[in-house]
């Protein structure tokens, strides 16, 4: 059974009556999470790649312009109240800035008691207290060091773990983590990633890890989706995509990672280094590959039509005409095969 699926979802902003500019934030992206085989999937991309929009689509916070999001086979758009409630419980999220997620007006208890009360998880005060303490301990926190405090009295790491505890209260099947460590210090980053890993390992919770940082994506996840301006540029197992990138954009990205090793200098993989500086003038609307005007390997056909995904390996596909000799594959098919 597929737990959570995005089926060729597209999200267009600014298609109102008054505005002329349309922004295709997410462009026919498919993604699948299998209920029986929990895994960690990374969605990586730079700012403007549509990764946060995709996250909000998956959480049902915004509606897709085209395509659909399915939870256990059922389209979110056609769900009734109780089905939506169930979806809400099972698909949870943690966010980038562990300070911003707290309402400064309340003690941190409020973010924990609200879900318990709204979803009627506990029959009594005592049960509520017990549930909260359990989930805090699961997230690696001591209840008496955290409850009753205001967010600014806690460290960044504690704040982020309380968000994990909040999600765990609802006993979800999927947690979407939107840049969970980009705002915390290096020394805490590892600890938080460790506890996210444990959720999958010990509780069987699937994780969608959204990030701009390929190194942590490599470390934590099994599969990765590289997004470029709303489209999937390359998808596959992290081992292959990051250790041996095929799409010119992925190569550029991997090549630009500032590795903490003075002996591996930037640009050691030299073949994409001639990429022009222009950070992406918009190409003719709707035509051609979105990366064409930055691509050192650009060919005539790149300007004519958007490349489909070509399956270059069993568990990897690339949207680039350089690989047009390989068989093409649909986004959904690829996503399902990775999840299987």
């Amino acid at each position, binding site marked *: 059974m597929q737990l959570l699926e995005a089926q060729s979802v597209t999200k267009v902003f600014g298609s109102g009556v008054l505005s002329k500019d349309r922004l295709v934030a997410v462009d026919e992206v498919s993604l699948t999470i299998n209920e029986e085989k929990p895994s960690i999937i990374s969605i990586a991309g730079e700012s403007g790649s549509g990764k946060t929009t995709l996250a909000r689509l998956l959480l049902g916070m915004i509606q897709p312009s085209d395509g659909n999001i399915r939870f256990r086979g059922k389209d979110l758009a056609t769900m009734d109240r109780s089905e939506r409630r169930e979806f809400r419980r099972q698909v949870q999220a943690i966010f980038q800035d562990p300070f911003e997620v707290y309402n400064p007006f309340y003690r941190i208890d409020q973010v924990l008691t609200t879900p318990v009360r709204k979803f009627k998880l506990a029959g009594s005060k005592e049960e509520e207290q017990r549930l909260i303490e359990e989930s805090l301990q699961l997230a690696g926190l001591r209840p008496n060091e955290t409850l009753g405090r205001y967010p600014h009295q806690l460290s960044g790491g504690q704040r982020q773990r309380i968000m994990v505890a909040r999600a765990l209260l609802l006993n979800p099947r999927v947690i979407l983590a939107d840049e969970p460590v980009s705002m915390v210090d290096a020394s805490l980053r*590892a600890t938080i990633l460790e506890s996210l890993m444990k959720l999958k390992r010990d509780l069987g919770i699937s994780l969608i890890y959204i990030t701009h940082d390929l*190194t942590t994506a490599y470390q934590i996840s099994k599969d990765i989706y590289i997004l470029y301006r709303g489209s999937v540029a390359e998808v596959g197992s992290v081992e292959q995509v990051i250790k041996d990138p095929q799409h010119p954009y992925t190569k550029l990205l991997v090549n*630009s990672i*500032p*590795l*903490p090793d003075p002996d591996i*200098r930037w640009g050691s993989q030299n073949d994409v280094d001639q990429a022009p500086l222009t950070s992406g003038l918009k190409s003719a609307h709707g035509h051609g590959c979105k990366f064409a005007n930055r691509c050192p390997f650009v060919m005539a056909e790149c300007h004519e039509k958007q490349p489909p995904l070509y399956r270059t390996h069993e568990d990897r596909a690339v949207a680039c005409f350089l690989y047009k000799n390989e068989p093409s594959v649909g986004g959904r098919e690829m996503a399902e095969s990775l999840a299987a």
Partner: protein
Amino acid sequence: MLSNVKTKPVDVRTKTRADRILDVRNLRVSYQTGGGQVRAVNDVSFFLRPSERLGLVGESGSGKTTMALSLMRLLQSPAVIEGGQVLLDGVDLLSLSEEEMRRARLADIALIPQGAMNSLNPMLKVGEQLRDAVTAHMDSGGKTSREARIFDVLESVELSRNVVNAYPHELSGGMKQRVCIAMGILLKPKVIIADEPTSALDVVVQRQVMETLGRVQSELGASIILVGHDMGLMAQFVDRVGVMYGGKLVEVSPVREIFKDPLHPYTQLLIGSLPTLESKENFKGISGMTPSLLTPPTGCMFHPRCPQVLPHCQVEIPPLVEIKPDRWVACHLYNGS
């Protein structure tokens, strides 16, 4: 001598070695908060060689930005420089008059600020902001040479001349950061302080901007202090790294050595926690919390979190000493040798 500052008699004791373009001695900065006095920079000493790239890393609250700004005396009101010396080419910047310091800024020591997104005045065209900067340091005339210099620096940071007519909001983040770099090298300063110059940029643009910065710096022969928290960026860019923890400098070493053989236990844990493409699913964090500067621990700042803590660590503050050539560390583990 500073090019723009009238020659000042230099105390014999402050006479510095010729191989140190910038020599910071016992710098102390504190600020007053509602809860009491906080010492953000605590007795920090280091030096910078001509044409050298020094990285200053630290987590949030380690005092790295406060220190960078205090070198240029740009601290805002509750923060006060309590003492120490900042010798730029032998002249103590902290002893200059306001007007002398103003003239030294940009001409001798320049800042490339954090958050280029908001560092340009949104109401003025880029050209006007560059012109303002040159004019502030000119006593008279020279309009054509001024314009020529502006086009020069724009070209050297790979920007088109047309950006002089653009407002900041019309530029991309990377372009704005390039404008800030152009601003920094406008008057060929001896020292450039770059405070997290790429923290808001994507990795691809970050790399391009840093490569530009590196190139103009070596063309100019200026020294650079790169302030930041990203060890990866340090590994790629600098010659030496200084590690700050709780307002103190705990280690200063050449970049290769610090990654291969970190000395201070904090540096060791920090390097160990970095994600690499070498290992999967293997996370090593540093347990414990960053010290509160309001109620700092006694002795060594790191002793509450230190796995190799010695009995006298919580009593005695370890000084920063050179234990091997060019390797400075502030830790009692190395006191004996």
